[in-house]
């Protein structure tokens, strides 16, 4: 059986990290994702935009007092992509 290709959008350390975190929670703030993935704000922000453009996550920008607040959530589409990615991974590993 031919191996399926891995979704390049997910096949990157930071984006995969973010998606795995969002898989397990209801929603997470930018600072939480930054802390857990050990990334820089600039890089994280770029990767979040990529995931959002693909429709994998939604990004909500609000304010907490005077501070800007960015909250991310995984979408149904993102969940499906993540599941497909994991299933494809299983094929690689099972081979």
């Amino acid at each position, binding site marked *: 059986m031919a191996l399926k290709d891995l979704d390049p959008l997910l*096949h990157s350390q930071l984006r995969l990290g973010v998606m795995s975190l969002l898989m397990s929670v209801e929603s997470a703030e930018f600072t939480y994702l930054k802390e857990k993935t050990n990334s820089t704000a600039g890089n994280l922000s770029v990767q979040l935009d990529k995931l959002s453009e693909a429709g994998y996550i939604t990004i909500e920008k609000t304010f907490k007092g005077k501070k800007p607040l960015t909250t991310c959530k995984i979408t149904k589409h993102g969940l499906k992509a993540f599941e497909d990615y994991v299933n494809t991974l299983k094929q690689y*590993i099972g081979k």
Partner: protein
Amino acid sequence: MFVSLNPDMEKHNETLNPHQSLDLITSMIRQAKGNVRKSSFYFLLWGWTIVIANLGVYILIRFTDVKNPFLMFALTIPAGLISAIYSVRQSKTQTVSTHLDQIHKWVWIGYGINCVLVVVVGKSISWMINPVIIAMCAMPTFITGVILKFKPLMWGGVVFWAAGTVLFFVPMADQFLISAFAIALGYLVPGYMLRKSEK
């Protein structure tokens, strides 16, 4: 749009091989787990409120001829307000919300709605409000114990199931005394233990 993955080649650049991918996913999911907020605050606030209200009603019935001793339960109104303010403040400091946090919150809100309902229909259930409320409170308490993986709260739930059953068979005035004991055992004792574990 999709790329092939050659594990051997990938080792030499920044992308991941399948095992690294899986490790990453597992470690991130593990990070996100165990994030359920512990909060002994509600157990202590409500524990004391209900204990004082119940003891107050018992004392007023037994030793005075106050017309409406049940007004002691008006104490639950400020307690409800304090809970609401506290939870809004808490949600401002939290950076992540897990599914378990949501379940935890809604199990208690659901219980609160049930309590209001029981009070409203009090007459139709022969004013057996205390037995019903105490028995009902076993479930959210037990479930909170499961969510927090905190056994004393699970035992608290068991106390309420037992006390709820007993309450149906004792005279009205004694129900308030037993309820106060049940709440002290089921809320306050685990509440203080939880508080200790939070430090």
